[in-house]
């Protein structure tokens, strides 16, 4: 890590834009930057395609990454494929299971990340954590934290966060992960989380991801009016095209999934009650 501390990361802007959810900027930066080595070029492409994935432009990714592309990019392609078609997911997961069963090249962080992402989408948190455990990069750790939080294991998430902080406390990912953990911890940490999002907005640009985070902080603090303001700001940022895309995506949104599940549960439970007499 010493090398990382000393050197300037030429892909900093690309990565940073990706992590804070500024995908178009990530793409623009990636197209602008001139990597100094083939490794860096692959790394850049990885972020470029992941930004496309985040924009749901799966076709670009599937099309651009060829069979002769580096294994890192193949992994990205796998994730794009997974997300793009609902009905092929089982096959992809089965394939992934097999790959994971073999010994995996732990140096291919991208593969670990993509595999972890797929498992997480499958809500197979065990497999996701097992996969991410093999990686040492900040992003592996950040994803681990996210999975742990979804398991309500704030205690473990904090431990993982500490590791991240030891590696690079000021990194964007560490900061973001700190915010997530802070939200989960609650109490006065909520304000800290808010400031982290606010600072990133100040420093780079305010994105939906950051505004969303701020709104969550506000709501957790019962500051509903403020939250509404932030959400309105976020809405104003969304172009109508993007909005319809989002609506499309809503069907798969965990929030809505939950909602529908609960609705069914309600209907089932209603049957358990009845008046003792009828009119």
């Amino acid at each position: 890590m010493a090398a990382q501390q000393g050197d300037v990361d030429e892909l900093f802007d690309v990565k940073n834009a990706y992590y804070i959810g500024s995908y178009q900027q990530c793409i623009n930066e990636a197209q602008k930057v001139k990597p100094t080595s083939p490794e860096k070029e692959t790394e850049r492409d990885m972020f470029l395609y992941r930004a496309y994935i985040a924009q749901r432009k799966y076709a670009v990714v599937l099309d651009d990454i060829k069979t002769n592309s580096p294994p890192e990019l193949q992994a990205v392609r796998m994730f794009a494929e997974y997300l793009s078609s609902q009905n092929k997911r089982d096959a992809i997961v089965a394939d992934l299971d097999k790959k994971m069963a073999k010994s995996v090249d732990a140096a291919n962080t991208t593969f670990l990340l993509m595999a972890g992402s797929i498992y997480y989408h499958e809500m197979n948190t065990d497999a996701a954590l097992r996969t991410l455990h093999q990686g040492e990069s900040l992003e592996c750790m950040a994803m681990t934290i996210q999975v742990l939080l979804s398991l309500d294991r704030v205690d473990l998430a904090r431990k993982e966060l500490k590791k991240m902080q030891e590696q690079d406390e000021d990194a964007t990912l560490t900061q973001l992960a700190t915010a997530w953990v802070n939200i989960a911890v609650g109490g006065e940490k909520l304000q800290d989380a808010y400031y982290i999002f606010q600072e990133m907005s100040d420093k780079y640009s305010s994105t939906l991801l950051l505004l969303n985070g701020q709104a969550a902080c506000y709501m957790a603090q019962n500051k509903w009016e403020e939250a509404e303001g932030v959400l309105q700001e976020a809405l104003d940022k969304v172009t109508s095209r993007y909005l319809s895309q989002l609506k499309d995506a809503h069907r798969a949104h965990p929030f809505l999934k939950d909602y529908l599940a609960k609705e069914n549960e309600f209907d089932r439970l209603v049957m358990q009650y009845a008046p003792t007499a009828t009119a």
Partner: protein
Amino acid sequence: MLTKFETKSARVKGLSFHPKRPWVLASLHNGVIQLWDYRMCTLIDKFDEHDGPVRGIDFHKQQPLFVSGGDDYKIKVWNYKLRRCLFTLLGHLDYIRTTFFHHEYPWILSASDDQTIRIWNWQSRTCVCVLTGHNHYVMCAQFHPSEDLVVSASLDQTVRVWDISGLRKKNLSPGAVETEVRGISGVDLFGASDAVVKHVLEGHDRGVNWAAFHPSMPLIVSGADDRQVKIWRMNESKAWELDTCRGHYNNVSCAVFHPRQELILSNSEDKSIRVWDMSKRTGVQTFRRDHDRFWVLGAHPNLNLFAAGHDSGMIVFKLERERPAYAVHGNMLYYVKDRFLRQLDFNSSKDTAVMQLRSGSKFPVFSMSYNPAENAVLLCTRATNLENSTYDLYSIPKESDSQNPDAPEGKRSSGLTAVWVARNRFAVLDRMHSLLIKNLKNEIVKKVQVPSCEEIFYAGTGSLLLRDADGVTLFDVQQKRSLATVKIAKVKYVVWSADTSHVALLAKHAIMICNRKLESLCNIHENIRVKSGAWDESGVFIYTTSNHIKYALTSGDHGIIRTLDLPIYVTRVRGNSVYCLDRECRPRVLTIDPTEYRFKLALVNRKYDEVLHMVRNAKLVGQSIIAYLQKKGYPEVALHFVKDEKTRFSLALECGNIEVALEAAKALDERSCWERLGEAALLQGHHQVVEMCYQRTKNFDKLTFLYLITGNLAKLRKMMKIAEIRKDMSGHYQAALYLGDVTERVRILKNCGQKSLAYLTAATHGLDEEETVKNHSYVFLKVHSDINAIAAKGKAGQMAADLDMDAPGGEGWGDDAELQLDEDGFMDAQEGLGDEGVGREEGGGWEVEEDLDLPPELDLPAGAGGGAEDGFFVPPTKGMSPTQMWCNNSQLPVDHILAGSFETAMRLLHDQVGVVNFGPYKSLFMQTLSRGRTCYLGLPSLPCLRSHPQRNWKDCGAKQGLPAVGLRLSDLISRLQQCYQLTTSGRFEEAVERFRVILLSVPLLVVDNKQEIAEAQQLITICREYIVGLTMETERKKLPKDTLDQQKRLCEMAAYFTHCNLQPVHMVLVLRTALNLFFKLRNFKTAAGFARRLLELGPKPDVAQQTRKILAACEKTLTDAHQLNYDPHNPFDLCAASFVPLYRGRPVEKCPLSGACYSPPYKGQICRVTQVTEIGKDVIGLRVSPLQFR
């Protein structure tokens, strides 16, 4: 010690500050007196009349005068406005050492080597008193600033204090005549009455060079060749030596008291200036020069300024910085004053001391950095030796008593500058000039390698501006890299705009404005020191120099807004108010006129509507604005300002506005105007205007030519006629030539006597008439064709011009169109790409299948290996989610719904309020559930993270959480109003529905106190009463009213309705219905009862009047015609299902939630009011507050 100004000259022997203007007089050893402006750093004037060194110099406090005394024994009084010596006072017999004006009387005090001190009246220009007594050179003599005293110092080793009250009485008492004073040469003539020695101060053991009074205390300071500075105290009867300051190692030439602080300044031939603490008598500061001995000191009477004269010039200096340390955040100004951190609210002007600073540093706070997130400040203190500088990190107390603020413990460390870089990080530039990042505990988090750097400034989150010798670098602390650099020498302050899109870099004499990327937008040079600045809300930078408030636009335009008497430090600019701190640290608000820069800003931003609005409404006239506009290339805007036709005309010409110019020219009607207009119009091809101009100026030649080139032959012919009339032969001939009219030419030549030429012409074009005609037509053709060619060319030119006009437009349009095409093409391409992608996808899918085929055989053993690998990583089990905790922590149904635990929620509702039919609760459940969680994004492309807002988030810890409830009692109560309105407007069914939703929502409330529990229960009662009543009324309206029994039933129901507990406004309506029905049924007695109840409610006058009429009618026959099942005097409950009265004492079943009553047969059925609960069910009761479980 801060040097403000330095001069180089011959030895400076005398100095005097002007009390008001930024001037200082220096008298030189070479006989010259210099007048300097120390703020502008310029020599204003030189006075060279003395012969030999000038040692005494002094400004008069009010008049434009100064006095000087020199080695030529002369005292000269000068007027600096007239720039000459007014007169010379003669009398001293040796060098004159000092000359001073009296602050009040028209006196001059002079000290001389002739061992005398003399007092002169400069109005009568005579010597009024000679003070003798010293027996060696008198080196210095000064008036007391308020009393009738003089102090003098002499090489006889004494300091003397003289009482001159006698002199004042004698000369200045009413009735004193000038002549009486004349001829005072022998002071002792009338005894020692005029001026007597009061005290002789002996203590120096060498000659004394200087003595001065303290401005307010009875103290004297003296400096002598014994290298000592002595302080003396005196009272009415005696004077004694108080203390001695030792430290100079050569003759002390001058010593003065600091006008406002407990300090003494002295200077000496040992080439140093020393500052002494008066109370401790210790040296505080020493300032040395390498080669120059100091001779004289001067203190400014009002300002914190001093001057010192030495062998090769003088310096003007101050002892310490006067800039207050301050920081602005939002509406708050934080500043340091007298060891307190104060907070000023710009909006309310509330100024409070928020904390007391830790004492211990003798240096004032140099700079401040404020952190709004943590409400913490960094205060930097600079020591004389930079390496000893420190900073303090304080957390500002949240609440503080302004009168006696807390003094929180700060954290102090050494470092030149400390600046926040994030909410929990600050950067420190340490004395080794390396950069440390520290956290809130003041612990070093990391060290950052930076390019050479001597100062750091704030630059937004995560960034810093680093200053080195010749530039400023924007440095990203996280990435540890330089992002941009700009060249500017010695930046002192940095001011960011509110949105940090622009930054102003302030150096001593320069301002540079850059954007966020540190690209220089403009560069402004100032002759006077730049002091401070702030951005106004429209993006104009307002800054101050020592004597001006100025503005700068990012485009580089700058100018003066107003002048200042004293420097101020701008903290904020809003509208036309400039908020600032002055040197005494007082917050002030100055008003400025922002019109000029707003105007320029609007111009730069091309907001012409704004510009025109300002032009019309602001008083913006003036040559400077017009000249500015002209210079900046906006003559068309300037046009709007100008009333003066002449200027208007030239502006119009400048911007090519021929119409306006023509108008102006018509108004002016001057030959020169027409000529200029003609030229301009010709250039633009306005030949009609050109024609008019030529006509007005009677420029026939040009006019003729104009007609020729425009092909206007008819007019050309007219011109020929005019020329003929005017007897302008040459013009006439020329026109004929143009027209190709040979006969005319022959005629002209003949007429003017050029017969031979006429003949020659005729012969050239054919001898006889016919030939002439022939040739004539030939020539004519030729010329004419030329003319046509010219005309055609002109036309072509015009056409071409027209085309040119069109061409760019066409291109622009074309560009757009093409661009669109491109975009379309691109879109298409993308779509194509998409299609291809889809095609490939299938291919990819196939590939995957291919992959699938291979591994199964190979994979089984590897799979086992993978299993073994799992050994060291055990995936964690799922933790306890907040929602589970909510269920554990609460017995309130809503908390369970929010947690998504519908099963337990239903059980609770069932047990508490007897809900058995949950159908109607569905939407309430689902709505509530949605409120229970928020989603936010973690890593991109991953399912979002969830958070659970909790109502006790502040203090619940990890385990005690309870969900935030969106539904509030007050919301439900306010919704009641809508239901009332629906009721009033008779929309009963809708109203019932709404009431029911409120009723059903009540068990989903969470309230905090008993009062609210009662209110919630009351809310249920209200809803029940209305639902029962309105349902019954709806029912009643559906019933037939054909038979008497049917009518009786209707009346009964109307009567029961009046026993529902409704709002008065509704009760009035209900009672009226019942009254009317009963009246019609001739049940007058009961009707009268309704009427009385109605009147008690105080209905509207018309209703009341009618009711009284009916009541009167009823009272005539106070009987009931029919027997009804209604006894108003016997209290009853109403069965909500059958709508019959259940008189008290009879068995009744109640709804466990609404409390609605039912006759026993209905037990076990669904409550008609709530539609969810079971009638007569045994329950715990409504639970809406944790209080109910204690």
